[in-house]
Every structure is written in structure tokens, then in C-alpha cells.
């Protein structure tokens, strides 16, 4: 099973997108609790 450079980039983008998504949800919780 080979992993291409392009696939690593895509994987990192996906991980980053989900971390950003979690960040948005945390900010939303923070805002609603204020």
C-alpha cells in the first residue's frame, strides 16, 4: 500500500478542517454560555 504525497496533503487538510470545525463549536459554546 503506497501513500502518495498528494494523499498526505489531502489527509492533512481533512484533519485541519475537522480541528477547525471543533474550534467553531467550542467558540459557539463559549459565546452561548456568556
Amino acid at each position: 500500500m503506497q501513500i502518495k504525497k498528494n494523499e498526505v496533503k489531502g489527509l492533512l487538510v481533512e484533519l485541519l478542517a475537522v480541528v477547525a470545525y471543533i474550534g467553531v463549536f467550542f467558540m459557539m459554546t463559549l459565546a452561548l454560555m456568556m
Partner: protein
Amino acid sequence: MLIPLATSLLLGEWNPFFDFLITLAISTTLGLSLLLIGRETRENKSYVQWKHGLVVASLSWVILMVLCAIPYALSGHVYSFLDACFDVMSGFTTTGLVLTQDLDHLSLGLNMWRHMLTFIGGQGMIVLALTFLLKETAGAYIFYVGEGKDINLVPNVKGTARIIWKISLIYLLIGTIALWINGMLIGLSPLSAFFNGLFIFESAWSTGGFAPYTQNMMFYHSFSYEIITIVFFILGSLNFGLHYAAWSGNKKEILKNVETQSFFITTFITSALAVIALAKSGIYTDAVSMFRRVVYNVLSAHTTTGFNNVYAIQFAKEWGDFGILIMVVAMLIGGSACSTAGGFKGLRVAIVFKAFIADIKRLLSSERNVKLFRFHHIKDQILTDGLVKASALIIICYMVTFTIGTALGAYYGYPLSNAAFEMASVTGNVGLSIGITTPFMPVALKVYYIIAMYLGRLEFISVFALIGFIIGGVKKIWIK
């Protein structure tokens, strides 16, 4: 079965080792017998029709459920064989409801078995067979569709199945390492941290919800552990087509895809409403505990994972009817089509919603104006009546299954809100429990839950084909 067998052997767990050996012997005997029975058909190279594919896909799940339940039944951790079948179906369908008793003292071999079943179930048994076992793939696409996965990442079905497994195995490596390191940082021994990391990743990626301990995610008492699981259960609930597009360099697809847009909107609304409702009740007083106890559980419900970090009784006693209603909606919507998630899927919600808006626009525009409506899912697609009808039909099937199950729960004396919560969890293949799923629940409810998990996972059509095939066979025999 060889992996849990090897685990038991290496760790010197002799009882589960022999349980797996017995199961392996029974499965091999049955497999060889079926090969002998079907020899004539194989030699004639009979043409596989759609009905055969759908029936084989759905029937294979039932046979595998019975065979895979044998190690559970032999372990002595279940009260009956039906309970063992329940747990296997819960694993295969990535639901995560548990009837196995004394999870905290389960052997590592059996734990490996439980979590492997949910991991394989997430990807699909046919997909597994196509990737690693079968050489001939004639008619394979029909079996593959029969299992509820109808995406073509590359022109041939075997290639698509391989891509699905490649994505899953790469994430398995990353996720297990991340959870392993985090496990050691929170005080687990390296070996225990490894197995916990592996098991929790398998559950998270498959949106399964199994955990090696009774307390589920509460056992770890770790915010970072919870954050890592959120990352992987959200990734697991995304369409494999989306993963493939992102990995092939089409990164904008993540933002453009109608399914991710729908997922973001519905998760945001349900999480915000749950936070508002529970802030009003004053149970969780700061943002971190609100995020950990409320947003985590809503996301776990919406992605149909089923990890929980509050007790079942807390949902019933603290969340109130409004909180339960939000969870029911989240569990029914579920994750993405062609992912490891359940529910009636974000894509169908988006299609029906877009069709609704399109109808309103048509009403407001001139009768002479014929307009095509489009949506973007991997590529630009036209919103046809056939597509809307198919999506609406599946949503109706889910709702009917959910309503019957809720009524059955209420009939057996459970409060309506609790019956609805548990049934949404079963229909959507989620795995969160409000306390109904126990070995002492009525047998009819157990059987209905098994059927509902099965229907929800295979998305009805294959199972209906199997039922039709059986009725047709009985009719023929009756006429003869």
C-alpha cells in the same frame, strides 16, 4: 477471526482462544458445505441478477451474525444466545448498544473481536471480501450495492473497495498512535494504552460506540482523549467519496459538498439548541463542562457514534424532554451516505430540503419558466424527481421503523420520551442508551431492535428483497 485468536494466544488467554478455535471450525465447516452446495452454479458460471446480489448481501449479514455470536455465547458474558446475536448485530451495524455483561473483566481477545466486528461492519463485509478475499469480481457491484454502499470512486468495484480500506487503514494507524500516546500520558501502561487506543479508534472511525469498559468514555476522564475521538468519529462519518476527492487533490470539495454543508448546519443547530436548553437548567455551569458533556454527546449522537460521557440516567433525569428531543432528531439525521455512519443521512436531508425549496420557487415563478435545480455532491448533479422520491422513501422507511419501535417500547411500559430516545439510537445505528437496553428487557423488543439495526444499516431495500425472495420461495412450494 485469526486476529483475536492470535491475541488470545499471545496473551495466554486460553478460554477465549478455544472459543475462537471452535467458532473457526464451525465457520469453516459451514463455508465448505456451502461451497459444495453451490459448486454446480459456480461451474455453470450463472449470471448474477440484481435480486441475487441484494439477497446474498442481506442474508450474509444474518449468517455472519449467528456465527460471530458463538465466541460471545461461549465466553459466559451473555445471558442468552439472543443477547450474543444482539451484540454482534450492534457491532456489525456500528450501533454500539451492549448486552454483554461485566465488560470491565472481558478478555482482550473478546474485546479485540468486538471492536474488529464494528470496524469491519463500518467498512462493510462485502467491501472487505472484495478487497482481501475474492479474486473474481463478476457481479460484485451488485453485492456491494446490496450492502448500502453505491459509490464508484474508480471505474471498477474492487478498486473502489481497496480505496475504502486504504483510507480506513491509514487513519487506523494515525488514530491508534494518537490515542496510544494520549493513553500513556493519562497514566495507562503502554500495553493497555495501545489496546485502548486501538479499540477506541476502531469504534470512533466506524461510528460504532463500543468501548472496552462499562463507563465508556467516562473511564478515561480526559478532555484530550475526547477531542481525539471527536476528530476521528467526524472523519468516519464523512462520505468515502469526499475523502477520496480530498486525497486526490480536490480540497475545495470539503466546503462545496452539499452533504458537508448539511452536516455542518444540522450539527450546529442541534448543538446550539442543546447548549441553550441545558444552560437554562443550570446543570453545567461553565463552557468547558458544557462542551464536554453536551456538545460531545450531541456530536456523538449526530455522527451516530454513540460514545457517551454522561450516565444513561442523566439523559433521562437531567436533560429533560427538550434535550431528549434534540438528541432524537440528531440521531435520526445521522452522518453521511457511503460512510460508516447510520441515520437517514445528510445527503438525503439536503436533497429533500432542496426539492422543497425548488417546489416553492416553481410555484412563485411563471408557469412557462422551466428551471433545472442542481446540487453539488462530488460533481454537479441535477435534482431529479427520481432522486427526491428515492431519498424521501428511505426517510419514510426510517420514520416508520422508528415509530413502530417507539410504540412497542411504550407498550412495554417505558416512558414515551425514553422509548423514542432508545429507538432513535437503534434506528440510526447510534448506540447511546437511556437505560432500556438491558438483558432484562422484553424479548420482543430485543428482536425488534436487532431487525431495526439491520434495516437501518442496509437501508431497507436489500432486506425487503430478501423478504420478497423468501415469500416468493414459500409461494412456489405452496403452489407445488
